[in-house]
């Protein structure tokens, strides 16, 4: 029988002395072994997790345990953890061991969470299927012939298959929300700058966020409130105070909700997802909430804007992988330039190279204004429009993804078709606002469907409370 399906379960079992942290870790270790073929974990920190568990057990015994005592967390392979390896699922970072720990991870450890291992993902977070990984593909536990989504595919499957309590992912254009939708989980992309990016191996710095995947809203809210907040190591991190999201989950008001015609009427949208989304809107109306249709004619421009800006930022961020300081260095180089070129050509996968090439092109002198500056202007329009809607309405609701989990190799030869998987998630990323994906039933094949709620910047508390309400409403 599955155990420890929520942190609440764990806390109660600990309080009743039915279990201890060591037993909890051993339970998950056993599950990880049984489900090893899913390939969610890149590395399991058996020894350090058990050592940490013993320490937390002592703290519990002496009444000094932190707020996450008993929570077992998996972290995406793009977050660094002192004295442990991180590869960003790339050959170019083979063997890299971090000298420090990401702020987000450290804050969980400081509250006595136990880090059980690192999780597979698309290389540097670039992908929507977890197929672009030097560690191999991850299988969706709902149907093992299908992708788990990406880029945080391992983070999603680890929680889906109960290999840890919650996991950390990162979301640049949908990389937490899309896999959450494909695996039936709760996944958040917080407001840009809400969580420090210190120790997150960068993909696109003006989009990157650290998010949480969990089985319920409360666990998600609790982890987020502990991770979020100002940090001396990331000057972009917001200094705004962080509310206790997990204590503000009661939702007792009438909400003003917008839905975007262009998402509901999108040709790419699977009919069952449309039906389930409309059913939620109908229920909300029946409950007395105000639900209104709005138009967003810029929707189709969000993805091209996203790709120009993120590839540009990636080409710059990934220039640090030169074979000098860490990771792979080509043994075949005869001078400095050939060391750079061979190291990078051998170390990066195809999708990463494609994005570096595209980013270098849009930043090159002759094309900078036509592509990069143009996209920065359209980004402003998209952000302003989104904020304007969210000033009039409390929430925007839309499907998280156009389709449910697809088969491996389905988009192998068409990068643009793969990019379109993120059609509904990039609006929040381009605008910087927070968005939450929640499970919303299944399609006729039994594959999970996700529904996405967006709120205005720094409205995570309102987002979680409404999400929690929606989950309850949907379970009735």
């Amino acid at each position, binding site marked *: 029988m599955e155990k420890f399906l929520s942190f609440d379960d764990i806390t109660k079992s600990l309080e009743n002395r039915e279990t201890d942290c060591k037993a909890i870790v051993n339970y998950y270790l056993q599950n990880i072994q049984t489900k090893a073929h899913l390939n969610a974990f890149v590395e399991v920190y058996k020894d350090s997790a058990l050592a940490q568990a013993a320490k937390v057990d002592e703290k519990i015994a002496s009444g000094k345990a932190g707020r996450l005592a008993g929570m077992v967390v998996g972290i995406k392979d793009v977050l660094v953890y002192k004295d442990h390896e991180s590869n960003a699922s790339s050959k170019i970072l083979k063997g890299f061991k971090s000298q420090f720990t990401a702020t987000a991870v450290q804050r969980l450890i400081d509250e006595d969470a136990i880090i059980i291992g690192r999780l597979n993902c698309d290389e540097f977070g670039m992908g929507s299927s977890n197929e672009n990984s030097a560690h191999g593909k991850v299988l969706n536990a709902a149907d093992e012939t299908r992708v788990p989504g990406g880029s945080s595919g391992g983070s999603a499957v680890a929680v889906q298959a109960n290999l840890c309590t919650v996991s950390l992912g990162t979301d640049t254009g949908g990389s937490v929300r899309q896999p959450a939708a494909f695996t039936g989980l709760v996944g958040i992309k917080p407001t840009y700058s809400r969580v420090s990016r210190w120790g997150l191996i960068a993909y696109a710095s003006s989009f990157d966020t650290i998010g949480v995947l969990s089985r319920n809203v409360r666990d998600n809210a609790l982890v987020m409130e502990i991770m979020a907040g100002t940090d001396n190591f990331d000057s972009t991190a917001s200094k705004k105070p962080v509310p206790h999201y997990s204590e503000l989950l009661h939702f007792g008001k009438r909400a003003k909700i917008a839905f975007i015609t262009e998402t509901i009427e999108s040709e790419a949208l699977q009919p069952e997802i449309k039906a389930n989304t409309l059913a939620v809107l109908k229920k909300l109306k029946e409950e007395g909430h105000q639900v209104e249709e709005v138009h967003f004619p810029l929707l189709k421009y969000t993805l*091209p804007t996203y790709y120009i800006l993120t590839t540009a930022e990636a080409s710059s961020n990934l220039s640090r992988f030169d074979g000098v300081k860490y990771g792979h260095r080509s043994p075949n180089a005869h001078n400095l330039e050939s060391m750079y070129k061979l190291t990078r050509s051998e170390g990066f996968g195809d999708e990463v190279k494609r994005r570096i090439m595209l980013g*270098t092109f849009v930043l090159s002198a002759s094309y900078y204004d036509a592509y990069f500056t143009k996209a920065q202007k359209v980004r402003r329009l998209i952000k302003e429009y989104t904020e304007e809607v969210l000033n009039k309405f409390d929430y925007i609701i839309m499907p998280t993804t156009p389709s449910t989990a697809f088969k491996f190799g389905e988009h192998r030869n068409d990068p643009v078709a793969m990019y379109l998987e993120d059609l509904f998630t990039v609006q929040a990323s381009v605008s910087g606002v927070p968005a939450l994906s929640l499970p919303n039933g299944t399609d006729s094949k039994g594959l999970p469907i996700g529904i996405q709620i967006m709120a205005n910047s720094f409205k995570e508390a309102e987002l979680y409370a409404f999400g929690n309400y929606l989950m309850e409403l949907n379970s009735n």
Partner: protein
Amino acid sequence: MKIDLNTVKKISHLARLEFNEEGAEKIQKDMTQILDWVEQLNEVDTIGIEPITTMSSEVNVMREDVVGEHLSHEAGLLNAPQRDSDYFRVPKVLE
């Protein structure tokens, strides 16, 4: 925008990447396809719109200029593919 092989060569040098003949043709095709797709943005009227350059609402974040925790020499060189006791080692820069 049609990307030709000469452009692929120029851009790959700037990006410090190398492609063999087959790889260059594939990236040429992919870049052309992706650029054709992103060029939809030209349909959007952006006259008078300022490009957005930062997404954080924090401005001019200052701190005291004091020495804090830092990596030791040894820790800094920990991941070096090639090193001596003091420095990262790289192949000859000048022939």
